[in-house]
C-alpha cells in the first residue's frame, strides 16, 4: 500500500542521490522514493531531464522534492515546469529534511503538519 505522496532526492553526486533513499526506506517502507544524481554523463552536477525522469518513475502523483545546492534547485524548478506531477520543493537540509518527511509520510501525517516540522530545517 504505497502512500499517496512520494519523495524525490536531487543531488550533484550520483552516490549521494542513490544513498539517501537507502536511509529513508528503513523508516518509510511504503513511501515511493526516487532520485536524480549527477549530470547525464554521470559527472558531478544536475540535469533537469534526469529530474523529470525521477518524477515520472515515482509511483506517487504528488511529490516532495529535496536538493543539495542552489544549481540543483534551478534544475528542479525547470523540471517542475516540464512535468505534470504536483511537486513541492523544500529549501531544507537535504538529508535531514528528506528523513523527517519520510518518517512522517510513513505515519500518514498530513502534509500541512509535515511542512510545520520541516520549517525549522529550512537553511537555504
Amino acid at each position, binding site marked *: 500500500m504505497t502512500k499517496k505522496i512520494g519523495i524525490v532526492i536531487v543531488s550533484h553526486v550520483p552516490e549521494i542521490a542513490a544513498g539517501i533513499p537507502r536511509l529513508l526506506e528503513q523508516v518509510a517502507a511504503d513511501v515511493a522514493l526516487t532520485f536524480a544524481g549527477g*549530470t*547525464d*554523463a554521470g*559527472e*558531478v*552536477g*544536475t*540535469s*533537469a*531531464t534526469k529530474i523529470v525522469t525521477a518524477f515520472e518513475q515515482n509511483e506517487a502523483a504528488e511529490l516532495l522534492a529535496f536538493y543539495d*545546492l*542552489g*544549481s540543483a534547485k*534551478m*534544475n528542479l*524548478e*525547470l523540471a517542475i515546469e516540464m512535468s505534470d506531477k504536483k511537486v513541492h520543493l523544500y529549501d531544507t537540509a537535504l538529508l535531514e529534511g528528506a528523513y523527517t518527511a519520510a518518517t512522517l509520510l510513513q505515519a500518514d501525517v498530513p502534509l500541512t503538519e509535515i511542512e510545520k516540522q520541516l520549517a525549522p530545517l529550512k537553511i537555504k
Partner: protein
Amino acid sequence: MLTVELTKKWMELFYAQIDQEKAYLSELDTPIGDGDHGNNMKRGVDGVKDSLAKLKDPTLKETLRTIAMALISKVGGASGPLYGTAFLEMAKKCDESQEPAILFAAALEGIKKRGGAKEGDKTMVDVWAPTVKALTDGSFGTEQIKQAVASTKEMIARKGRASYLGERSVGHLDPGAMSSGYLFETFIAAGGVK
C-alpha cells in the same frame, strides 16, 4: 532584428570564443567556485552546435528553443538552467518582437526569476542588466560590456557557490559574468547591432 541566420552566426562565434577561453573560464571559477565553468560552457556549446546542425529550415522560435534545451541538458552547472531559461524566454517572446533590446530584456527577467539574483550579487545578472539597459539608451557596445564584466570584481557574492565566501569573494571576476560578456560580444561580432 534577430533572425535565424544571425542567431546561427552568433552561436558559431560564441562556440569559438568558449572553445578558446574554456581554460580561462574554469580558472576564474577556481578561487570562488568549483573550477568547472569553462568545461560546463564547452559542453553546452557543443550541445548547441550539434542540435542546431540537426534542424532543417527552423523558425526563429525553434532555433532559440533548441539552443535553450541544449544548454539545459548539457551544461550540468548553475549556468545551464540560467542560460537555458534566458533562451527559453527569448523563444517565447520572439513572436511578438525580434528587437534585441526586447528579447534580451525578457531573457534577463528569466535569469532573475530562475536564480533569484539581483544586480550587485556578483553573478551574470551584473552583465545582463546593464547590457539590456545599454541596448535601450544606445550605449551598448564592447566597451560597455567589458566594463560590466569588470564591475563584478569588487562585488561581494550573494548567490551561487561564491556566496559561501562572502567578502572573500572580492577581488575575483565572476566566471558567469565573463561568459555572458562573451555572449554579448559575439552577438556584436555576428552583426547583431550595428
